[in-house]
């Protein structure tokens, strides 16, 4: 009786709300520089998820109740990311896409230049959709982005549920499958940010869901299901390069499998042709810069794999920070590493058991075979995490491959739930799902920034801003639409909310200009060639770190290490004017000089 009450939907909704509040509280305490115990946050995540996982493992809920539960899970976990944000986007890609969305609103047309990632304006799906909300509601890019990605996230959860339910024939299995998917390393933060893949992946799952529904429908009804498939393929092609290639690959593979397996249903080659044609057509006609953006990354990844495999290069340390992180950051604690590794073990065990069952029962379904391939490829992609330049490729691939893994693992979970003493088995599955969720979150986001840092704070009841944000506000209010060279973290904030054209990073090589203490001969000509009169010199060592560099410094905790004084003085010695000075950041105007 008590268990039944605790398993009721209102009680589960209440526990999700309490869990979300705990996550919000942990973030709030962290923003208040009170260094809260991370346990509050992890406890909050588990309070959200475990009751839902437990209920999903039951045989009692109806199809609609399961759908409601996974929507609640998706919404609550999305809100965990929202309460991490504060009032501005803070993830490095979000600044880039928000800048594009604001440009669409400002200029009323697409394809305006983006200095941070020049490829992004040529995949304007997410920004275009956000601009519709911005224009029709008056919301900022932040508000519109939160609503848009929230809608996409809920669509993703429901579509994945329908997809798994149709393929496995079990609503219970489908609910568990979606729960497993929340354990992918990119689910909690990276996949919930305002970025093109956060929209394209849900659209891809809608297309796959429509495809399997079409397969199950009687012949006269198949045409109806083709409508969302075709619209989805077209929309994905102009939203995200990688997703459009993944979708084309899936349909091509399906077309081949249908032929080889002599499936007695219409071969999906028209969809394969459309998906490949639109992805390739968009790449060649509109988004040629993608080749210069994506292929060097893939090339480096392949080189890194070969070098690591041959022993030429040392393997990457797991749970280490990226090479761009200059600040000394707290490493992931041993217990957290153990949870993340144990999560991989749990997934591996579930996949092994699941594969056996899937092979016995479902191997006549081409999409199921593809999912099996995806599950195996996921574990192969995990090895990329050992290669320094390939870990990101492996990490990005995981979001797609994990769909297959989650499906296969449903059958592993079903084996676990089979047999006597169901309650104990359900508890075991709930615990395993909890480990997978927490393990994924640990391996998907750096440990030291799982909790928010202060970008804005209050003092004596008034709002105060971190230096990068204060500079961005100054630029927005007084230097309308100027062109900047800046360390990458400052450059992102200058894009939005600063609304300026800000270059950072290595293409062109702004990074060396703003980081080196000596002025080299090539530096001023490069700034002149790119028409960058405003130059930001930032002494903070983490000013190139787009995940950590824009926040308040907190002595004793993080962000206090400084670069040599030369990074500022070299420009003062030219001499050129100093327009803004906050202590660690100086804004120079190269055109203002004697």
């Amino acid at each position, binding site marked *: 009786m008590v268990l039944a009450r605790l398993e009721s939907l209102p*009680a589960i*909704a*209440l526990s999700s709300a309490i869990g*979300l*509040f705990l*996550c*919000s509280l942990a973030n*709030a305490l962290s*923003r*208040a*520089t*009170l260094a809260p115990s991370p346990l509050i946050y992890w406890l909050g995540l588990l309070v959200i998820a475990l009751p839902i996982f437990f209920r999903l493992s039951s045989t009692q809920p109806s199809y609609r109740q399961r759908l409601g539960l996974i929507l609640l899970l998706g919404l609550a976990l999305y*809100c965990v990311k929202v*309460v991490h944000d*504060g009032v501005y986007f803070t993830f490095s890609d979000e600044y880039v896409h928000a800048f594009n969305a604001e440009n669409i*609103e400002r200029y*009323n*047309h*697409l394809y305006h230049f983006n200095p941070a990632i020049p490829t992004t304006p040529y995949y*304007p*799906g997410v920004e*275009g*959709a956000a*601009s*519709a909300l911005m*224009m*029709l*509601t*008056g919301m900022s890019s932040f508000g519109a982005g939160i*609503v848009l990605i929230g*809608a996409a996230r809920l*669509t993703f959860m*429901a*579509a994945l549920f*329908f997809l798994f339910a149709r393929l496995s024939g079990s609503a219970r299995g489908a609910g568990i499958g979606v729960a497993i998917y929340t354990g992918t390393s990119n689910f909690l933060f990276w996949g919930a940010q305002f970025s093109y893949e956060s*929209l394209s992946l849900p*659209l891809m799952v809608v297309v796959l869901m429509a495809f399997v529904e079409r397969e199950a429908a009687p012949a006269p009804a198949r045409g*109806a299901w083709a*409508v*969302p498939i075709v619209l*989805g393929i077209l*929309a994905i092609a102009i939203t995200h390069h990688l997703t459009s290639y993944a979708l084309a690959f899936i349909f091509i593979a399906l077309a081949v499998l249908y032929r080889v397996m002599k499936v007695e249903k219409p071969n999906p080659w028209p969809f394969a042709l459309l998906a490949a044609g639109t992805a390739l057509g968009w790449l060649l006609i509109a988004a040629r810069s993608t080749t210069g953006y994506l292929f060097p990354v893939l090339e480096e990844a392949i080189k890194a794999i070969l070098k690591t495999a041959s022993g030429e290069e040392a393997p990457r340390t797991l749970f280490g920070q990226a090479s761009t992180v200059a600040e000394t950051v707290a490493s992931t604690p041993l217990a957290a590493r153990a949870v993340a590794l144990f999560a991989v073990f749990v997934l591996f065990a579930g996949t092994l058991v699941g594969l056996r069952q899937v092979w016995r029962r479902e191997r006549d379904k081409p999409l199921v075979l593809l999912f099996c391939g995806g599950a195996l490829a996921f574990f192969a992609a995990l090895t990329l995490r050992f290669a320094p330049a390939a870990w990101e490729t492996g990490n990005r691939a995981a979001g797609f491959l994990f769909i297959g893994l989650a499906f296969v693992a449903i059958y592993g979970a079903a084996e676990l739930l089979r047999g006597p003493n169901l309650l104990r088995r359900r508890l075991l599955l709930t615990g395993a799902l909890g480990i997978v969720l927490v393990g994924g979150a640990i391996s998907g986001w750096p440990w030291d920034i799982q909790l928010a840092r202060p970008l*804005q*704070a209050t*003092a*004596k009841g*008034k709002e105060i801003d*971190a230096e990068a944000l204060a*500079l961005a506000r100054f630029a927005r209010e007084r230097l309308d639409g100027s062109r900047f060279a800046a360390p990458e973290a400052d450059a992102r904030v200058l894009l939005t909310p600063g609304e300026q054209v800000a270059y950072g990073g290595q293409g062109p090589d702004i990074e060396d200009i703003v980081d080196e203490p000596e002025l080299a001969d090539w530096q001023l000509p490069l*700034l*002149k060639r790119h028409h960058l009169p405003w130059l930001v010199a930032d002494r903070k060592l983490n000013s190139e770190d787009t995940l950590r560099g824009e926040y308040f410094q*907190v002595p004793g905790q993080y962000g*206090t290490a400084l670069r040599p004084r030369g990074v500022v003085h070299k420009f003062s010695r030219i001499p050129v*004017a*100093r327009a*803004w*000075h*906050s202590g660690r950041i100086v804004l120079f105007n190269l*055109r*203002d000089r004697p």
Partner: protein
Amino acid sequence: MRGHRDLKWICLAAVLCALVAALVPWEIVRIVAAVPLTLFLPGYAIVAAAFGSRDLAPPKRTVLSVGVSLMVLVLGTFVLNIPSFGITTASWAVLLPLVVIAAARGAAVRRERPGRHRRAAISIRWPAPGSLAIFSLAIAIAVAALVLGQKPLPAEDAAGYTALWMLPTDSREEAVAVGVVSNQQDSHKYRLRVNVGQEQAQTYRVRVDPGEERVYEVDVPPRANGRTHVVATLYRAGAPEKTYRRVTSWLPRQTTFP
């Protein structure tokens, strides 16, 4: 569309939502109108047109409606980019109702005649009062969590600072604005000294509270030739000889790079 009440309602709703979103000045009202217009109605109409009289379970219809609406927004951006007026509030407010009306018209044609086709009534069971109370409590806690997440909080260990800036007041560049912005944890006192060339200097006593900005305007007399070097220096009240912040300019400014 006679007899197809759902199609008639979505057409009306699309037009009404578009008008409200485009014309009403209050953001919250516009959000209430624009969210269904962008994220539900176009998809619902297209799904209705695609499926005609065929049954589709309400949960799947709803999810497809949102998913297809997202696709319409993506493709709509591409379409609106073609004409010279481009992507504007007005063009969205026209395009989306047009999509809804056209697709609803197509759905009405594809559906069987009203009367012959009966949809299963959707029964909504209201939760018991106890459940409703728990749901309300859950929503209240979730809203509190979101509000807490958005709220800037005191961060006493965060390193505060004061910024100094200087820019010409207008294109004639015969005066500069000098700003002192406090992002400190407490009120601070400063002395601001502005040197205009070698002859003229002005000093200000500045007291700024956290989050406060004080702006001073200083005239820069035009010179017959050469440029006037303007230097603004900020000193802390407790360390009057040690430069705390310094900004500079040479007026009139050059337009070329060094």
